[in-house]
């Protein structure tokens, strides 16, 4: 399968990329990992006339902590995240998520930022970033701006990014003490998108009462879903078995799955229920210092 022809640009600096995007106009497409864009171009579901390859821009591959948040640069691959000790120790939800994305070969190329920029509700990072309350940093000829993840996903394959904006960095707030998170995904086989997935991030107080809860759902809606009703329900409650059960039922009701090759809507809704309960239990264990 051969994509339609296009003109290729490989800027060597961020400001060069920004001005290129401005010159080329809204038909230009950014290429980062290429693991979503290139398959779509091969199938001719996308035929951009201009490709701006950002892979040669220096200083965009970093995972670091600063000013109370984890910063993930535009060229961080999934496999970089997977081996980052910082992520493995302090951001378990993120570590869980990256491990179940695609397969190891795809993860060597695919970027975390591209995973969000693609705006695909079947991708795994959107739910996780919604649970973590991440902030998106975008750069364009108009300068830099921050976008709350809540406002980022605007439709199927659409995001708040303008055509001339580059997603430069994701910022994930560093979880306070007594926090824990987990991502659980049901997939038919390695490399498949989720039949359903659930991301949970919680913070407990000293008595075990839930102070903060973030819950995101994968591939059970047209737009990556923040399960706000579950979050509201959990806040201020001691997270005992009854609360977990009730929360999982609310999550199932909040999901909006469709029948497709991965299963019926009813089946997926029930999966959301089961996965939410399991993810919550694991997040609580981790918040209490367990594995």
């Amino acid at each position, binding site marked *: 399968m051969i994509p339609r022809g296009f003109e290729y640009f490989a800027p060597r600096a961020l400001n060069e990329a920004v001005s290129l995007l401005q010159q080329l106009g809204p038909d230009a497409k950014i*290429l980062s990992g290429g693991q979503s864009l290139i398959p779509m171009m091969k199938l001719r579901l996308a035929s951009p006339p201009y490709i701006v390859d950002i892979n040669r821009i220096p200083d965009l591959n970093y995972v670091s902590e600063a000013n109370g948040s984890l910063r993930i640069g535009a060229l961080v691959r999934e496999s970089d995240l997977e081996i980052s000790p910082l992520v493995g120790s302090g951001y378990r939800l993120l570590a869980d998520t990256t491990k179940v994305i695609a397969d190891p070969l795809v993860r*060597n190329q695919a970027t975390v930022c591209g995973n969000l920029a693609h705006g695909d509700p079947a991708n795994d990072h959107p739910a996780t970033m919604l649970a973590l309350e991440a902030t998106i940093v975008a750069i364009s000829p108009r300068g830099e701006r921050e976008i709350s993840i809540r406002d980022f996903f605007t439709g199927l394959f659409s995001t708040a990014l303008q055509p001339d904006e580059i997603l430069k960095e994701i910022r994930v707030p560093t979880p306070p003490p007594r926090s824990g998170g987990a991502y659980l995904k049901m997939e038919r086989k390695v490399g498949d998108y989720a039949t359903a997935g659930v991301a949970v991030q919680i913070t407990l107080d000293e008595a075990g009462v839930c102070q903060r809860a973030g819950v995101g759902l994968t591939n059970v809606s047209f737009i990556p879903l923040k399960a706000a009703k579950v979050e509201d329900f959990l806040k201020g409650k001691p997270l005992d078995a009854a609360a977990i059960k009730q929360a999982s039922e609310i999550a199932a009701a909040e999901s909006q799955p469709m029948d497709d090759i991965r299963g019926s809507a009813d089946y997926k809704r029930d999966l959301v229920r089961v996965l939410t309960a399991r993810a919550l239990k694991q997040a609580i264990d981790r918040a209490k210092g367990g594995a």
Partner: protein
Amino acid sequence: MAKIEINVRVNGVEHRAEVEPRLLLVHFLRESLRLTGTHIGCDTSHCGACTVVIDGRAVKSCTMFAAQVDGREILTVEGLERDGKLHPLQEGFFQEHGLQCGYCTPGMLMTGYAFLNGNTAPTEDEIRHAISGNLCRCTGYVNIVKAYQYAAARLREGGV
């Protein structure tokens, strides 16, 4: 569309070429350089038959443009053998019967090459995770795992 110039090192040999931007890396390797050891299985980014190693990382060459490898270093299955001697992984596949039809084998070898470079004492579980992006429709994977273990042992003893 205007062609662009790329300079790339493949199996230790420098190549300079003019390529159409839409040319996929796998076609560049197979058709321009005539290195047909790299296979096309699915052409939809799922099977891993097209795996090559770029600057130490195993990636799918059907999901990359040749234009992207300008200035980079590529290893394909043809580059594994050195001075007429098989790489321990190739020897492992031979000794442990790690292939039947052989279609997945180049990809399995390249994934294994990058994987064992970072870990010469892998557990079976680690090996199975490492090959989870490479599909084999013949062997049932058992002997591929054994071939990796054979190679890991050889590499620990100080093989190439």
